[in-house]
């Protein structure tokens, strides 16, 4: 019961944020790309969260930033999960040489330091939503692939799969209609966690100044605030806290959904924690 | 006939959430220096009797009525302090084969030495070495097995190591709870041989618990059936 409430709170927050992202144009009081006030203005009736170093409305920036975060989070998670499912299921199902090669590649990816690689890639490819998502997606599939592989091996060993195979079902059929269906809750759960990590990673990238300078992102708002010494002027209270809270809100909401989902599928999930 | 060493009187045990007791008014006398086989089908409460003697009922949240007398002490009513002095020191247990008795990160040597050290904190290193080789000899295991972890040993080896562990304090009573079930016939015979030899040389009383009547007949002096 409790997990149901937590789950619905999470879903509600996420739906709201998606709506904000979709209708950003109509919701934001100003265009976040134009100078609409004096620079470094304090919060006021016109500018709820004040203005930034070049006179853009911070509240509008915040609303537009939802787009970037959600887009990169979802895209990078989709990319990561696609690779992870392909590698994990193929490796676990077919075994043998293919398994050994795929697992070697997975281990190499696991060993490579995450952020340095992402930074160097982002530095060489100016960070659009797509390039950011691809970089993050490609760098974050190995852990999930490993989990899916061991799950696939377990499913493959179960009796009912042997029975279906005995009746002449093809590999593709069994994977598509049985293995995949059994893996689905796990894939969904891991996917949510990946969206959360993607959003955190995107904000980190933008915070390091590696994002697309033209795009509005919660991380980059903090980056510009930080480089304008918001900490010393006291403007961090309306300039740095709100975007950070937004990031917390999304990732908290995602964790809530993941938590309630996990509680409902309890016995199966706890093994993978 | 020998003197009675362990006496179970009107023992009844209930598990939580059940009306009917698993064991209802069970009586048993164990005489000194005998091998008594307690036989019964699985589910008849043999392991519950073992748990009652060893004071393990708490682990299963079970409730017991009756008496178990050992050395004029009622094991069911005794304080935990006193029980600690009896358990394993006077009455030791070789648990079921399926139970993993050994800490996976300890070698057999570490497990044995920990027990010896617990009994005597001032024990010298040579004494430890002597005792552990003695134990190994007792159960017919190579000395090299001392350096093994549980996962490196076969079933028969593990079972004999379990006997060695039960023998650390030279107990008066040894309880073998399905100690050979699940083992290969040849290894079974070997382990049973070890037990018989121990009984002769160490002057011990053995409570042998099994579901296998034939095996019980072969090894025991006396057999008690439970339903």
């Amino acid at each position, binding site marked *: 019961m409790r997990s149901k409430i937590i789950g619905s709170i999470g879903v509600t927050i996420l739906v709201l944020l998606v709506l904000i992202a979709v209708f950003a144009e109509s919701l934001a009081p100003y265009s976040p790309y134009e100078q609409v006030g004096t620079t470094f203005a304090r919060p006021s009736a016109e500018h709820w969260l004040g203005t930034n170093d070049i006179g853009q409305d911070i509240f509008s920036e915040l609303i537009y930033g939802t787009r970037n975060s959600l887009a990169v989070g979802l895209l990078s998670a989709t990319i990561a999960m696609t690779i992870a499912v392909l590698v994990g299921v193929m490796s676990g199902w077919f075994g043998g040489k293919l398994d050994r090669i795929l697992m070697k590649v997975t281990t190499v990816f696991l060993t490579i330091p995450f952020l340095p690689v992402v930074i160097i890639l982002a530095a*060489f490819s100016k960070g659009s939503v797509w390039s950011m998502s691809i970089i993050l997606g490609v760098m974050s599939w190995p852990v999930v692939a490993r989990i899916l592989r061991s799950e696939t091996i377990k499913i493959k060993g179960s009796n009912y799969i042997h029975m279906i195979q005995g009746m002449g079902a093809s590999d593709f059929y069994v994977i598509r209609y049985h293995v995949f269906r059994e893996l689905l809750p796990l894939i969904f759960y891991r996917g949510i966690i990946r969206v959360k990590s993607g959003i955190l990673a995107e904000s980190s990238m933008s915070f390091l100044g590696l994002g697309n300078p033209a795009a509005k992102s919660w991380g980059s708002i903090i980056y510009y605030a930080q480089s304008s010494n918001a900490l010393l002027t006291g403007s961090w209270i309306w300039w740095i806290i709100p975007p950070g809270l937004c990031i917390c809100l999304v990732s908290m909401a995602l964790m809530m959904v993941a938590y309630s989902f996990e509680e409902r599928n309890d016995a199966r999930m706890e093994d993978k924690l | 006939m020998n003197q009675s060493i362990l006496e179970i009187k009107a023992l009844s045990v209930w598990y939580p959430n059940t009306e009917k007791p698993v064991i209802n008014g069970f009586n048993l006398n164990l005489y000194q220096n005998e091998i008594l086989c307690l036989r019964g089908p699985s589910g008849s409460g043999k392991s519950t009797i073992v748990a009652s003697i060893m004071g393990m009922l708490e682990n299963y949240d079970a409730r017991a009525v009756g008496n178990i007398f050992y050395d004029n002490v009622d094991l069911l009513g005794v304080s935990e302090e006193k029980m600690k002095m009896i358990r394993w020191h006077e009455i030791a247990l070789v648990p079921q084969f399926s139970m993993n008795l050994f800490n996976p*990160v300890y070698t057999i040597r570490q497990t044995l030495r920990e027990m010896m050290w617990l009994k005597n904190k001032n024990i010298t290193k040579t004494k430890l070495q002597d005792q552990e080789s003695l134990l190994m000899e007792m159960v017919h295991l190579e000395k090299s097995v001392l350096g093994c972890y549980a996962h490196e040993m076969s079933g028969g080896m593990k079972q004999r190591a379990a006997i060695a562990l039960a023998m650390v304090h030279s107990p008066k009573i040894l309880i073998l709870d399905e100690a050979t079930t699940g083992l290969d016939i040849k290894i079974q015979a070997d382990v049973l041989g070890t037990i018989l030899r121990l009984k002769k040389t160490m002057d011990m009383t053995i409570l042998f618990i099994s579901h296998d009547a034939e095996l019980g007949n072969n090894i025991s002096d006396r057999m008690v059936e439970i339903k």
Partner: protein
Amino acid sequence: MKKRIGHYLIILVIVIVANFFIPRLLPGSPIKTLIGEDTGQMTAEEKMGILDSYHLNDPITVQFGYYIKDLFSDDWGLSFSKRQPIKDLLKSAAGWTLLLSSVSMFFSIVIGCCLGAHSARKRKTKSDLNLILGTTFLSSIPPFWVAILLLAVFGAQLRWFPTYGAYSMWSDKQGLAYVLDVSYHLVLPVLALVLTSLLPYFTTTRYSVLKIINEDYIKMAKIRGVPDHTINVRYVMHNAIIPVFTMVMLDVGYLLSGSILIETVFSYPGLGVLMRDAVTARDYPLIQYTFLISSVLTIIALFLADLCYRKLDPSLEGADEK
């Protein structure tokens, strides 16, 4: 063991090769990538000079030869944005990063494991639930943001802790005073890192302790009269720590990542700040070598973690040979 060393060597080679090819395969002219955007002001001759000094006019195989040769030579050239030898820059930066990340990792593991074990023992009580929610909440906060808030509150406002660097500049502290000074500067960065990286250790320990306290060997140890203290430490914790170490192995790769972000906030003179400065200044040789060093450090850390793991888990001993 030989196989493990081989494995890490292969990864090292992959990283070295990737470090050479990534900048050359990505779009953009080499001269632009090398010296930034303002190439327009240079004469053709100057451009050729730069290309020559980096051997960029040679075929790629020859370039690779020079790259390897430089790598093993004592001179990694000068950073043009910092005007200092790259090797010196990296040496001091790597030290600070190692200090920051190892101290934080140590505390995350210790605190995470203790909380996890505590939570497991109090399963289904209020304090268990609070810990689960608390750690989950902490893990949803971006680490750099926590760092900024800590800095703003305890550094800038309350002035309890320094806001900048790894040690007091312009002071000539020696011995113990220096150690204290460095530790003082470490408090906030470490706190930020530890707070945001507790979750994996917490959940893994909690779950594995829950599983282990129901194992037969724990019950039997109690029956055998092994004292509670020994059971807790040498039976429960030792076994519970093994899966936690699997977690550590996965986390070492992300270890430097966290520290890079935190360093940026506190202007901590480590690899993270160096890398960010290099990226902002488009100082590509410096980026490349910083990347290389952080990768090598990660691989070494992984290797060490692997060694410890093998010490902790006897069932892995000699698992390679089988």
